[in-house]
């Protein structure tokens, strides 16, 4: 039962190579072979170098990230997976300039995030990063359209209308634009959130369990769009997820356990991810040994 479910979902994934941008196919192949090594032809959108993050102090201290180094290539769709409490959200927050690191450096595009003040961080998030959260993504007082152009409005600029129109069209939101979030279904709300994340053409979009609250159908719609935005628009996406089916949409899956990267898998399928998760305990043990 469990198994067939995954197979059906996996079957829905548009892995048709025709949909892929050739350039990104290159990227894909390269990232498949070597992790963390930038090729001279492709650029790195986001990089973390030796990042440490701990919460609390003394006895109660929890080390959420231990010496994490990872790079995310431009125009690639990366999933971050790992058991609950493994540090996925923490990593994402540190990468996105929402949280500070204790040690190590985070770089987005050509700017170093680490050490920036609140003003600069805010500006960075506004101009270079798109966010999709699990829920509560939208402002209830604004219409769908206004929510989509919210980051531009905050910046006091105007979003490129052609671009926004194209995203809205792709997301099939055209006749929902004047609706308030309360008048939209959960899936529609998440689609609006996706559109908002992409509207400013950010360097990278971070999504923390964007389908966590959605039913399978709505989740598939959102994942399809994320895939499309990578393939057709060359968007860089980093997505945290628990769902192997969702991870299968990505070009690459990074596994976290106990605050460390324990596995880096290219061209995942639902089955390969599930398989990896089955052997996870061993991976974690190996990683811990290595750390010790």
């Amino acid at each position, binding site marked *: 039962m469990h198994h067939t479910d995954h197979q059906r979902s996996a079957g829905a994934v548009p892995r048709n190579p025709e949909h892929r941008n050739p350039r990104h196919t290159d990227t894909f192949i390269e990232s498949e072979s070597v992790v963390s090594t930038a090729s001279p032809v492709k650029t790195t959108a986001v990089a973390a170098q030796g990042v440490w993050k701990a919460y609390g102090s003394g006895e109660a201290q929890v080390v959420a990230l231990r010496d994490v180094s990872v790079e995310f290539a431009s125009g690639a769709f990366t999933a971050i997976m790992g058991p609950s409490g493994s540090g996925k959200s923490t990593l994402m927050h540190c990468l996105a300039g929402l949280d500070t690191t204790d040690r190590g450096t985070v770089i987005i595009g050509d700017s170093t995030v680490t050490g920036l003040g609140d003003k600069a961080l805010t500006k960075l998030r506004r*101009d270079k990063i798109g966010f999709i959260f699990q829920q509560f993504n939208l*402002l209830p007082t604004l219409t769908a359209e206004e929510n989509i152009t919210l980051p531009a409005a905050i910046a006091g600029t105007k979003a490129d209308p052609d671009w926004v129109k194209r995203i809205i069209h792709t997301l099939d939101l055209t006749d929902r634009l004047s609706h308030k979030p309360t008048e939209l279904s959960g899936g529609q709300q998440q689609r609006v959130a996706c559109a908002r994340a992409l509207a400013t053409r950010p360097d990278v979009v971070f999504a923390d369990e964007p389908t966590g609250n959605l039913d399978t159908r709505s989740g598939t719609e959102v994942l399809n769009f994320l895939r499309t935005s990578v393939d057709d628009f060359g968007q860089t996406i980093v997505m945290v997820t628990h769902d192997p089916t969702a991870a299968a949409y990505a070009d690459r899956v990074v596994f976290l356990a106990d605050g460390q990267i324990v596995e880096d898998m290219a061209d995942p399928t639902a089955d390969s991810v599930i398989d990896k998760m089955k052997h996870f305990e061993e991976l974690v043990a190996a990683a811990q040994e290595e750390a010790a």
Partner: protein
Amino acid sequence: MTRLRPQSLLRTTVKGMAARKARLALTGLAVVLGAAFIAAALVLTASIRSTVDDLNGAAYAGVDLLVRPVEPETYGERLVREGVSAETLAAVEASDGVERVSTTVSWMINALDDNGKVVGGFAPTSAVNWGDESTDRELREGRAPETDGEVAVSAKFATDSGLGLGDTVTAYSMTSDKTEYAIVGVYGYPGGRDSLSGGTELAFTTEEAQYLVFDGRDVYSMVAVHAADGTSGAELLDALAPAVGAEAETVTIEDYSAEMSAETAEITGVIGNFLLGFGLVAVFVSVFLIANTFSIVIAGRLKEIAMMRAIGAGRGQIVRSVLAEALILGALAALAGTIVGVAGGAGLTSAVAGRLLDSAQVSVAIPPSAVIAALAVGIGVTVVSALVPALRASKTPPVEAMRAAVKADKPITGVTVTGAVVTAAGAAAMALGLTGSLGDRADLAGVGIGAGLVFVGVTLLTAWLSRPLVAALGALWSWSFAGKLGRRNAARNPRRTAGTAAALMIGVTLVTATATLLTSVKASLTDYFQDNVKAELFVTGPLTAAVSPSFDPAVMDGIREVEGVDHAVEMYYDLADIDGTEQYVNATTDFAGIVGLFGGTVAEGDDGALADDEIAVNAWAAEDLGVGMGDTVTATFSRGTEAREFTVAAILDDNENTDGWYVAATYTDEFYTTKPTMALIDVADGGDVAAVTAAVDGLLANEPEVSVQNHEDFVAEMTVFYDFAIIAIQLLLGLAMVVAVIGVVNTLVLSVLERTRELGMLRAIGMTRGQTTRMVTVESVTIALFGAILGIAVGVALGWAIQSALVETGIEVFAVPTALIAGYLGAAVLVGLLAAIAPAVRASKVDILAAIAYE
């Protein structure tokens, strides 16, 4: 089904309250204010009364009875003081049971300060006799007056006049000429007081006091009787009856003391009522504040309430748990308010006693009614205000606990319909009243009741009105995106915005309505003068002066010589007895001039100079007395000893400015004020009014009582009371502002809490701290402005309605107090800004990670 025990509910309530301390404290503050004002008002009134009683007791120690002249019925005759005659005094002194008597001569006079100006404004200057054994005056310097040319002055007079021991003071009365006296002593009163009730006093020898007060007659203002041992005041009262006769009356010291307290109570009553009014407004406003806070708190606890319902709590228990919270809050706030109010009332008594009675000794009385009223109102208003939210909470279905958090706001249709009906009813009543369909008295009542209904109706309509108005206000902030968001937040929950804005709206409505009405009154008077009075300048003195201001008619010659003066005429005034009725009589050397300058016209007869035995009269007055041209009337003037006969020589057209009777200036010696009380000056066309004013001012250098005024000054003088009223009413605005700030802070803090996730999301996607602060500030200012604008609109409308209803009484002009209204808008912005500080800081410091973390 298990039922929760009430005790456990109460415990939950108290725990819940402890967690919301700050919020509840803010809400309670409004109740504290209301209760405090009520308690203070009642404490003040009672304390002043007991203070006055104490002071009187001290001043009349050992006195059992007072003999005083019978007050004549009519105003005109009373102008010349009556007294207890020397014969009566002797008869009383000789009566059985009387141990001894002491006499008082006392009435108001004018005395000049070191600059030659009349001393004193509202508090009068009195002349008294030092008496043989003054117990209630204590010499501080020098000695008592011994000859007619000497005077001892009260310490307050010395301070106010700048004169002291060894100086000379000029004093005069209605009946005496200016006389110089040598100051031989300065005195105070028991208890170290500088004055008795804020007034100033000059003590002369008895003869000199009688010269000033009674025109030299050997009579007394009052005789204090000390009963012999073994004789009670009551016994003596009857025993003295034959000696006192009909010309005087006897009162016991207790009755007299009660009269005095009643007189003071009239003044303090005004202050007390004012405070009471403040208290009631604060209480009224708190209703919205409390209802709002409880609604918001309950909205945040809906899941908890639904859960409690699901595990078996009954509806009644939910209502009781909310009401218990209200009761505890109300009790704490009312108690605090009562304590603050009692303390404030006591403090205020000291201040009032200090100013009004010049007494440092205060006896504070805390009547049980003050405590009971403040507590009852405070607790009652809190519980009643929480009732609606409590009932609404109890209707929460248990399934609500399982439902998603986001819900559409409840419709506001019910309140809106009620509001519309009440407003319509009020408007109808006002319309009926204004069109005069209800009949004389009912018309005014209709307008009044209608105004009240409209007020309440619009208050209920606030939620409905908030949508369009807040949207319109949004135009102000459309340039800023943060502003737009703030405006939308303000429009988000009409019920909440309305409840918050209502606090300011109520205050602003009352203040605007009053200010509009009073401004209209002033404008009407000013217009009336502009349109009807030809004279540009007036020579006149303050209407509040104790002794009617007057001046030497000789200055008129000088005024007529001033370049640019076309015409100048002086006027004498008396309240005389004409054919047995009390009538206003003007005397003038230039009848035609007076009529012309006042804009009057002669209907019958001619406006030539009046002969000694001729009289002119306004048509109304002639009709009143049933006299016509050529008829004879008899007139006795205030000081006149015989009746004079006059023939009606002219009848004036009806005109308020030329009301009354006119005679030649032949008998002005028999007038109450024997000198002219007013002059009218007509500046020639093209003449330099400012230059004439300056020249006349110079000529009046030796006339301390009067000054030259233009129309504006003159109207300002007449309407000085309204100015005080307008200022006093603005204090109400201050109170409304304080409560409004509390209300807005309360709402915003709660809204910010509710929107933590949203704020976190906004900050995550790039909203700066500054933008967040601006967003909250705009929401705050929008709510405040909304309240103020609504208040101004309703206030102006109500002011207009009342003005319209009073057109017949002469308030013909409708004037909007634009400067004040601009001030109210400024005040609203200030309220918004102040209230935004804490919530905005809180919003800008939202922890993004905590906010976007899923529970």
